[in-house]
């Protein structure tokens, strides 16, 4: 169910034992993501450069209109690159949710602490209640056995 995790540290290097495949997969995934980031940012930069270059006004107006169409196209490409970067960011967030083991472990530890404290409190309270109940029980028993209900034989 969980997404494959991206290794938190650097590349896998030599992951030994049963995690070698997992480490290799994680490194591969990391490389892919970095590649995507590079592509997108390259797109942005290139298209913006073209826009700036083409800003010169030419004599035959034909070229101007041609350039205007091209400029629109480049602008669209830039926006698309930005969008894909955002998608990348949300993918990373999802990965962090499902495979961010450090934070998951922290959460689990925190909850364990809370529950342990709660359990201790409850145990303490139960013990106190128990002691009070035992004391009352002893008292009641002594009263009962010395009362008139018992001094006459219950036949």
């Amino acid at each position: 169910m969980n997404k494959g995790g991206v290794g938190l540290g650097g590349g896998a290097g030599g992951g030994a034992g049963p995690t070698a495949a997992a480490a290799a997969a994680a490194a591969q995934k990391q490389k892919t993501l970095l590649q995507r980031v590079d592509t997108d940012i390259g797109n942005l930069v290139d298209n913006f450069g073209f826009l700036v270059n083409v800003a010169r006004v030419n004599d035959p107006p034909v070229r101007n209109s041609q350039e205007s169409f091209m400029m629109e196209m480049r602008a669209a490409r830039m926006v698309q690159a930005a969008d894909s970067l955002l998608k990348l960011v949300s993918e990373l967030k999802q990965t962090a949710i499902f495979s961010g083991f450090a934070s998951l472990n922290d959460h689990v530890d925190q909850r364990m602490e809370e529950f342990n404290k709660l359990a201790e409190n409850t145990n303490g309270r139960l013990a106190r209640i128990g002691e009070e109940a035992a004391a009352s029980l002893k008292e009641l028993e002594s009263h009962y056995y010395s009362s008139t209900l018992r001094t006459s034989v219950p036949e």
Partner: protein
Amino acid sequence: MMKRVNLIRRIDFAWAVEREDPSKKQKSEGASAKEGTSTSQQQWPWQSLVENLQLAHQELSVIIDLINTVEANDAVTVAGMTRPKQLPNEHLSDLAVSTATKLQCFRNLGKYFKQSAKSLEEQIAREARFYGALIRLQQNWKIKRHRLVAAASGNEGFYIDLFDNSLYDSAAIFRPSSLSTIPIEHDAAGMLAVNLPRKSCHSLQFEVLGLSSASNLGKSGETKTSAGGNDSSKEPGKEYASNDERVREIHLTLREVHRAIHDEQVFDLVNREACNPSLVNDETNGSSHRNTTETSCVPSASVDGAKFGGSINQRNWGSQVHLVYRTPYVHLVSHPTWHSRTSSWTLSVKIPQSILHAGSQIPMPTAAAVKNIRSQFWTRVLVIDDSIRVEGEGAPNVVGLFRGRPDSVSSINGYDCDLVDLPIILLQQLETVVFLVVLCVLIRRSLVRLSSGCTRKPLLLVSKRQRDFLSLAFELDQGEIVRLVAHVDPEDTQGCISWWLTVDDGIVEEHKLHPDMSDVESESRKFLGYLSLEVLYSTLLDFLNLCSC
């Protein structure tokens, strides 16, 4: 070729000529137009459009032919083309126009960029809120993701898994509740929303038969019938509520669902217990049901141990309560142990002071020792898991009693027994104690009488202990044996320990002492009843007086 020249000659430039004399034409046209319109109203309204199109078509075909001919360079050739030299202002205006066009283009681009930037920012903010809420939820709940569902629907396929395995035995039926998974969706504002299934009602309340007061074993939650999305549409102000509050509300909702699931599981367990009454005792049917339900409501992993311990404890309790209730000199002291699989009780027998004091009026050197007889003897029952241990004082050391050393009075027997034997064993312990204490006092008394000079004494033969009766036998002068038999019967409704007096020849066999056949009184057996300790003591005294002197 001649045809084409003729065609060219036929090009009608009449329209140009007409344009030069507009004034002449308008008058005549005006006159004819009125006539034309009056007649054309009856005709088709698109007629003028059709005529214009036909004229245009004609002119276009003429020009195309001309161009073709010029291209072919047959009859007509282009002499030369010159463009008049542009005046500087024309040049500048051309430049201005193209600059303006370019500028316009850039402005459009700028607008486009701003728009997309705004929408991207909104998307960022939305996702940040969504994922922030999701991360906060993840601190407390299990969040999972369906890949396939994500591909199918527009949502991203997140859901919260509330299935709880801790109350199920391995043999139990595996039935996850319909509420186990809760999907997370984007609501109208793009924020995280939790959609409860419709018409989910979360209150459980039921009574246990046989009890006067209703015991609410299930907690009731609120009744929710609408999904989260509806709420946000009803209260538009809620969309502006802070993220924290939303997350808190979602936490509350999830907690309620979790509690409802847990109650459902408990209810299932209780139902199963009620339908398979394997742990229910016959005598205490009502209270046992409650006991098993109470013990099985413990939501712990050791529910098996609790159930079993509960059943054992409750059976013990049943037997002990009978014993204590029916026998007037037995006291039950319970020691609560706060461990569900252990319980311990103490049965104590208290010797009435009258018996003890009666012996203390003797002016003897052992008088002081009498005061040292303890007036209470105890038996302790300890139940751990399924083993029962009974400890009690055994035979008081008679010699020690006389010597007045209270510390070496009695030894302690301890042994483990089964559940079936428990009532009998408890009664046996009691019997031993009662019997022997009374015996000691009696012996002391008889010794006193001896020392005061009475010659005859009953000879104490034997005290036998069988499975369910004790007998104390005295031999009389004529060889007759008088027995005092105590029969213990846990199921006796009037009292657990009944006393019989039998007289026989001394050759009686043991099985005849067994009071099975024995509700019958005969000449040799007399039923004495359920005696309290004082009555027993005085009976024995009278008996001894009768026998001895």
